[in-house]
């Protein structure tokens, strides 16, 4: 008896492990596409909608006949906001499920976690979120913004007459790599524009911080010293308490505008925006952009959300990372068509210089060398209805500088992708 039970226990564990190893969905003649976004844990708040957007785009491509005559088949996994699990799931997608491309990741740490796996196995990852730069892997295509495509234009706008001609800058962020790096770049940029050290203040809060009383009081104090703008790299959930405190302490956008790099339409869904009118965000796309491509894109998304009965479908919104996901999948499909194969090396070549008429109203180009998109930069003001109205935009798409010239030593980095090892 004892023996049999022991054996049972061990075989149970072993078989469960084995199931994990060999879990594949067999289907003939499809191209498999991996989707690596957290559906549970802290990042689910942001990443769930990217998964849905990816599925919608894949459906759309399939409805048009697929790629190279084959249907796309999505393999969705949940890395559960657990960074080592990203690497494990990435490896699983590439080696067990044998997907040809992966769309996924939100946080930099998740990308950094899977990067060695993609480089080792020569996989292909499309990363759709704005980030701090300082990376250029041949196995990753970055469809979000590099700092010069978001942060620097935003500050230039704040310096302009229309942006309020700010003289002092309060750099507020959550204490982690993206805000630190972005603020480092911004500080160098501000100083190069003649802003004095004493007119720049950098403040960080811990992850998940929810009490902004002291910080808002400090912003007020700081702003008494001259026209001030706040540049916020506050992460996700902390934005709501920050903006609520800002509004309730009577700090208005006309006095001290806040420009945020991590607040988009999705985030505003959770905030009462009436007191926030006039605060700013910098992105490469806003749902409110008016052009036929975007109108169709937004309508398609709303219809999809309703059809799939996604939570909160009646209030479905699009945002920048969703657009970047949409663009990324479409560009990849075009490149596969062009290359005639899904082989990574050939698709990579085909992607260079690939163009796509994006919902942002611009025809975006994948750079010929640096794996980043040329993107327009837009500054939007928060409106009462939770949308942004674009108050400023670049005249044409901007080429990314993943190696920011404002960081020492980057001038020696090559302007093409090389494996990190």
């Amino acid at each position, binding site marked *: *008896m*004892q*023996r049999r*039970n*022991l*054996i*049972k*226990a*061990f075989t*149970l*564990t*072993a078989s*469960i*492990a084995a*199931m*994990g*190893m060999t*879990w594949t969905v067999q289907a003939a003649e499809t191209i498999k596409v991996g989707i690596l976004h957290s*559906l*549970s844990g802290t990042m689910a708040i942001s990443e769930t909608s990217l998964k849905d957007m990816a599925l919608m785009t894949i459906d759309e491509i399939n409805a048009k006949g697929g790629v190279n005559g084959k249907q796309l088949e999505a393999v*969705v*996994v*949940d*890395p*559960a906001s*657990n*960074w*080592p*699990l990203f*690497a*494990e*799931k990435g*490896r*699983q997608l590439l*080696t*067990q499920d044998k997907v040809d491309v992966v769309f996924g990741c939100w*946080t*930099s*740490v998740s990308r*950094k*976690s899977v*990067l*060695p*796996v993609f480089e*080792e196995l020569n996989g292909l990852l499309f990363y759709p979120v704005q980030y701090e730069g*300082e990376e250029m892997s041949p196995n990753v295509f970055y469809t979000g913004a590099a700092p010069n495509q978001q942060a620097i234009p935003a500050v230039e706008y704040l310096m302009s007459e229309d942006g309020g001609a700010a003289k002092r800058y309060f750099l507020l962020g959550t*204490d*982690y*790599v993206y805000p*630190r*790096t972005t603020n*480092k770049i911004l500080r160098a940029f501000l100083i190069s524009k003649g802003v004095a050290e004493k007119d720049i203040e950098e403040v*960080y809060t*811990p*992850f998940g911080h929810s009490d902004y009383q002291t910080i808002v009081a400090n912003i007020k104090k700081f702003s008494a010293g001259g026209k001030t703008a706040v540049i916020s790299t506050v992460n996700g959930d902390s934005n709501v308490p920050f903006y609520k405190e800002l509004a309730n302490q009577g700090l208005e956008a006309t006095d001290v505008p806040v420009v945020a790099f991590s607040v988009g339409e999705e985030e505003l869904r959770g905030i009462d925006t009436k007191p926030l009118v006039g605060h700013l965000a910098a992105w490469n796309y806003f749902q409110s952009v008016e052009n036929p491509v975007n109108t169709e894109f937004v309508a398609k998304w709303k219809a999809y959300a309703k059809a799939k009965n996604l939570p909160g479908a009646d209030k479905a919104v699009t945002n920048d990372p969703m657009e970047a996901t949409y663009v990324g999948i479409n560009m990849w499909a075009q490149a596969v068509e062009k290359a005639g194969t899904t082989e990574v090396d050939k698709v990579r070549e085909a992607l260079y210089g690939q163009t796509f008429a994006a919902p942002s109203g611009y025809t975006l180009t994948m750079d010929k060398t640096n794996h980043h998109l040329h993107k327009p930069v837009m500054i939007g003001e928060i409106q009462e209805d939770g949308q942004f109205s674009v108050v400023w935009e670049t005249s044409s798409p901007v080429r990314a500088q993943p190696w920011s010239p404002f*960081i*020492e*030593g980057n001038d020696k980095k090559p302007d093409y992708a090389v494996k*990190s*090892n």
Partner: protein
Amino acid sequence: MTMPMNQTLLARASAKLGPQASMAIGLLVLAVLLAMPLLHLLPADNALHVSAYSLTLVGKILCYCIVALALDLVWGYAGLLSLGHGLFFALGGYAMGMYLMREAAGDGLPAFMSFLAWTELPWYWYGTSNFLWALCLVVLAPGLLALVFGFFAFRSRIKGVYFSIMTQALTFAGMLLFFRNETGFGGNNGFTNFRTILGFDITSAHTRAVLFLATVVLLVASLYLGWRLARSKFGRVLTALRDAENRLMFCGYDPRGYKLFIWVLSAVLCGLAGALYVPQVGIINPSEMSPTNSIEAAVWVALGGRGTLIGPLLGAGLVNGMKSWFTVAFPEYWLFALGFLFIVVTLFLPKGVIGLLRRKSS
């Protein structure tokens, strides 16, 4: 508490079955684990080839098994539920990570430092390019922290829930500290992109096989250590401590020393597990210190059956195996399954899976 809990499953099994049978099962599992890295060296088209994915997955689970075992030593035997063992695990991992980052950086600074324009290494990084010193750190960092924390905690007789909450606060503080970029451990990104270990390519099949073997050896060694401890008078004193600390003191035993010894030992085991985990999964970052991870480790132990040596291993294997499977099979619903599992186990299997097996066998 009507059953003696200090007897190991193996001991009980051998009492009933004779040592050969349980020995045989153990050896079988061991043989499979030892064969896996060798099979990994076979060419990929061989039918018996074990993929890198399977090897790293099982390797990771084995590291978790060591953590579960270490936690069981303090919880199951000494009655100290730590909700902060992730901290020790992560510290060991960070110590190894420092070495790997130095190795990857060559003569320069680790990548994350150079892009923050740091010009020199913080003092605590000195010597980390030396593998032996890194190994010392793997033991010393968690060991010393556990020693200091344990010394004060046990001196003031903090126990039960208080102890659990304090360890949770400790790991939470550690997480916040390591999250900061300025702390000098790569902030929230932690360490990734390792290249070589002792000069060997970290992605090569041979390196993977050796790391896996090292994990198996460490697991077997910790099992043996646990087994010896549980059978020694020391083990009986711990059990006595768990059940009636005051009585034990009036017998003339100083519980502080006993608690401190097992506590530090457990922390060091976790650190070692962390050190083996990092090169296998390829990343270490502060989220390993999040209280959630440590609670999960307690769940492994409870699920498998605490106060036994095999139970925690079963628990860690089951939960992580299920996690790997569910996150693919039912990505949106796996938390329900996990949640129900915890409830069901605590309600119906108070002695864990091991208890269930025992009950069936008797």
